[in-house]
């Protein structure tokens, strides 16, 4: 295969990926679930065989098009049905409730004490007793909800701040 053809094939695959990425309506990589991520890997992996002409473009389109269509159907289902959403993405897991570890949640996610400490440090949490609920979300990020009294003061409490300062 001569260099010009490689160049043309590389350019076509690039444009194809660009269109696929834009039309998937996907959020950023950081917000993607583990499966979104692996699916993106599969897509990019399918394409290099087409680029090197080891498979025809027709077969590449059959393969990636199928994945794309199934994924769109899956996303339509999960946006319309809560059950489908939980089935495809898993459920968020409570790892800390009222400052105490939730052993069953941690076991389900195979998180040991070091992992939990790491997740909490990432969120800047030092004092666990201030946490009402810490939840490992389906995209593997930790969300932390503090007890109300430990939430930061907002402008709503301006009077109280003035009073406290006076």
């Amino acid at each position: 295969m001569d260099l010009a053809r490689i160049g043309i094939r590389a350019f076509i695959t690039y444009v194809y990926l660009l269109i696929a990425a834009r039309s998937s309506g996907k959020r950023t990589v950081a917000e993607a679930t583990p499966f979104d991520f692996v699916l993106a890997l599969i897509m990019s992996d399918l394409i290099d065989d087409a680029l090197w002409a080891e498979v025809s473009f027709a077969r590449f389109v059959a393969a990636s098009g199928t994945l794309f269509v199934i994924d769109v159907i899956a996303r339509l289902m999960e946006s319309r049905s809560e059950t489908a959403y939980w089935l495809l993405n898993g459920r968020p897991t409570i790892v800390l409730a009222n400052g105490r570890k939730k052993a069953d949640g941690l076991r389900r996610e195979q998180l040991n004490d070091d992992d939990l400490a790491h997740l909490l440090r990432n969120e800047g949490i030092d004092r666990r007793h201030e946490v009402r609920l810490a939840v490992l979300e389906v995209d593997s990020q930790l969300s932390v909800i503090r007890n109300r009294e430990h939430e930061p003061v907002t402008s709503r409490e301006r009077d109280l701040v003035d009073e406290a300062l006076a």
Partner: protein
Amino acid sequence: MDWAQLAETAGRAALVYVVMLAVIRLLGKRTVGNFTVFDLLVALMLGEVVDEIIYGDVTMAQGMTAIVVVAAAKYATQWLTYISPTLNKFLEGKPTEIVRHGELMRDALRSEMIHEKEAMASLRLKGITDIREVKTAVLEVDGEISVLKEEWAEPLQRADVLGGKPDNDEPPPEKRTDTPEALGAV
């Protein structure tokens, strides 16, 4: 154009989609995200082995064997690191403290091969402009730097200003989005 071959490719792709979804769901949320380089490598590996399956370079049975073995090994590793702190430290590494009470730990930075400027940039990304506000900054096993602030550098909390007075702004239950039920969490 060989339509039968195209149909077979499409069928294999569909099957791979279902299998990979099942594998990722069984492995749990650790596969990618806040976790280690090794977690990422396994995700890359699983993503890389399937093109031969889809294009029929290997049989379905061969492909599934590879996927199942990698997934099972990953699951076993996760479980072993979960039950054994020693193995956890060996496989995932240890976090390193790089700032303590406002002072950069220069030896730690040197042994982690991080330049001071890089460390300061990580702190800026966390909104720290005055290093004295940092109680401890830790280089985590996933390469991120986490920051815990000194108590005096943290925002005032409601309890600080309420001073025992009743909280009159409690949101009504139906407005709350943070109950376990609303989260759908288990």
